[in-house]
């Protein structure tokens, strides 16, 4: 085998190395699982890293309650098939406990509220490392993120005082109460993830493929017409279109794109040709140019 001739394979080797560093350096790691393609890729990498042993850490899903039903169904099946442990914590509980307040209005989303639920869960289980699927190509602030990114007791990211990360040596030394966010696919691009999913023949939720859906148009973006979760003005007319999703976040902040890509190879082709970056379809980043950086400082993924 010649593992370093292919770009994707060298990224895979790097990610597997990082997964193993997490298992070796931390006592209670967890893999943050959203049901999206990036976290599904992480699961695949974790399975590969520890074969023939089981993945030595659980998955945790911070459920906003506004997920696409297809995602949840997929999540449960994946966990069962691979014999993994799954922890679910609900944003609804944080709302019920009065820890966070639901947003209202046209752009209401539970995306921001996830942070509180996540930090509470980290404390509850005493997780010292949380593996996430963030990639540096997604967004400018993320381009500066380390692979091992230390968070303080409040889950905060101090972007100006990040540990230098040299060679492939990962420093996982932390104090009690701190935790590390780990990003094994930091160096992957969106296209790399899709190419890997195609190469490995990994199953992903159906909403990533073109399907007929009731949608409405707002600010030039296509939104799922699910009135229970997504706010819609009366004049915003519902139509049926052939669409797919490029990211699978909260329904309230994830826009669809028109697409006829019904297979993985067609999706890869579409991404290759695409001129709108992935996060362009995420309304939460459009709030301001510094939106992502602000959320990260507060402990977001």
């Amino acid at each position: 085998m010649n593992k370093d001739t292919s770009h994707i394979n060298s990224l895979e080797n790097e990610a597997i190395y990082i997964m193993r560093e997490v298992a070796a350096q931390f006592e209670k790691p967890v893999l943050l699982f959203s049901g999206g393609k990036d976290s599904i890729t992480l699961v695949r990498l974790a399975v590969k890293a520890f074969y023939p042993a089981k993945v030595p850490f659980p998955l945790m899903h911070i459920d906003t309650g506004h997920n696409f039903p297809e995602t949840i169904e997929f999540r449960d099946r994946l966990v069962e098939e691979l014999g993994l442990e799954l922890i679910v914590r609900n944003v609804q509980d944080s709302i019920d406990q009065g820890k966070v307040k639901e947003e209202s209005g046209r752009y209401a989303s539970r995306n921001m509220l996830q942070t509180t639920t996540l930090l509470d869960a980290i404390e509850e289980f005493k997780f010292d490392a949380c593996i996430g699927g963030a990639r540096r190509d997604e967004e400018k602030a993320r381009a500066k993120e380390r692979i091992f990114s230390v968070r303080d007791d409040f889950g905060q990211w101090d972007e100006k005082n990040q540990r230098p990360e040299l060679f492939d040596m990962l420093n996982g030394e932390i104090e009690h109460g701190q935790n590390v966010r780990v990003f094994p696919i930091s160096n992957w691009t969106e296209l790399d993830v899709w190419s890997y999913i195609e190469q490995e023949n990994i199953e992903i939720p159906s909403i990533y493929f073109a399907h007929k859906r009731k949608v409405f148009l707002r600010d030039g973006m296509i939104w799922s017409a699910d009135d229970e979760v997504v706010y819609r003005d009366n004049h915003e007319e519902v139509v049926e279109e052939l669409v797919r999703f490029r990211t699978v976040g909260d329904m309230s902040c994830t826009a669809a794109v028109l697409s006829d890509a019904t297979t993985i190879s067609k999706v890869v082709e579409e991404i290759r040709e695409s001129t709108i970056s992935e996060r362009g379809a995420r309304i939460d980043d459009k709030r301001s140019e510094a939106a992502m950086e602000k959320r990260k400082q507060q402990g977001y993924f």
Partner: protein
Amino acid sequence: MEVLKIATAGSVDDGKSTLIGRILYDTKSLTTDKLEAIEKTSKQRGYDYLDFSLATDGLVAEREQGITIDVAHIYFSTKKKSYIIADTPGHVEYTRNMVTGASTSQASIILIDARKGVIEQTNRHFFINNLLRIKDVVVTINKMDLVDYSEEVYNKIKADFEELMSKRDYQDQKITFIPVSALKGDNVVNKSDKMPWYKGEALLEHLEQLNKADIFNVGTPRFPVQYVIRPKTEDFHDFRGYAGKVYGGNLSVGDDVIVLPSKTRSKIKDIYFYNEKYETASRRSSVTITLEDDINVSRGDMIVKEGDLPTIEKQFTANVCWMDSNQLTPGGKYIVQHGVNKVLAKVDRINHKIHPDYSGIDHDVTGLGVNDIASVTFKLNKPIFYDQFKNHRTNGSFILIDTQTNNTVGAGFIQ
């Protein structure tokens, strides 16, 4: 398709971000929404050109000050290759970021402002590229449009830089000079017709034709054990696999090996990558190895080929780049992380401080401040298995961790 990591170094206002933005723009790597954001902000600021630096300067503080203060990673690809640019800041006080960015890079771009020529910063940038033994260095002379695309200016800068090259101690480094204008796009992605006197390639053309032999140093195989895999399931009851990444060279089934530090001999039985067995594990692949003999191997141990042993010592001397505001002083204790192995280390002595601008060394040193580079001798609480950095980029390097703050406070290159 291979991935090529490139470190960039330049001083304030050399136009480094503009150069990267230009590469992204001309390779059509900027998406419509990113391009629109750049157009909008450029217009707001009253520029009559597109400020490509907006594509890369990620943090709020950077946008406000108009400078780059941390390593940012930028991704783009062509039909031939995938690229990662580690955009490292060029200020004097940010040497640590440059070392960081260069440590994972195989090639580098040093930017020089054609109007200013070779300045003290250039010396530093080249010094670091040399210290880290980057095999391919492109000296990019930017803002040629502001010096009337003058061959004379280019030749003068080239001659000055060549004088610098005579001082380097790592000679196996290919250095290429390219005159460009990042703002106008000359010789960045496309060859310019403004400088007919320049017969070489455009910057991207140069990068496109680099192959493995141009960028990787080949050494002897080293296999630091990262993690021991013991499934204890019915199917794999006695399975004991050693997970790790192969460095330097390849390992094959049947190779006679020695496990360090116990110096136990064995043979490689199987090489797994996930559920498939392979005959050979090539360098930089993350595999799982099983051995013929049932011996005790744990994380931090190293599997090497028989007859090819690294140095096994409880002390070493290294060039250290210090990265912390607290000083390194003789007697100070740190964790040395050498690959995946961690040992306690004590600073035995600081031999001398090296001026990173090739202006000499200082023997009379009491401590190291942030961004200092010095030769330091360490004593360890147990032996490590190392090669000299000049022979093995991976097994000859380490990081220093402060035992109090847990921060990574330095990087070292074993002599």
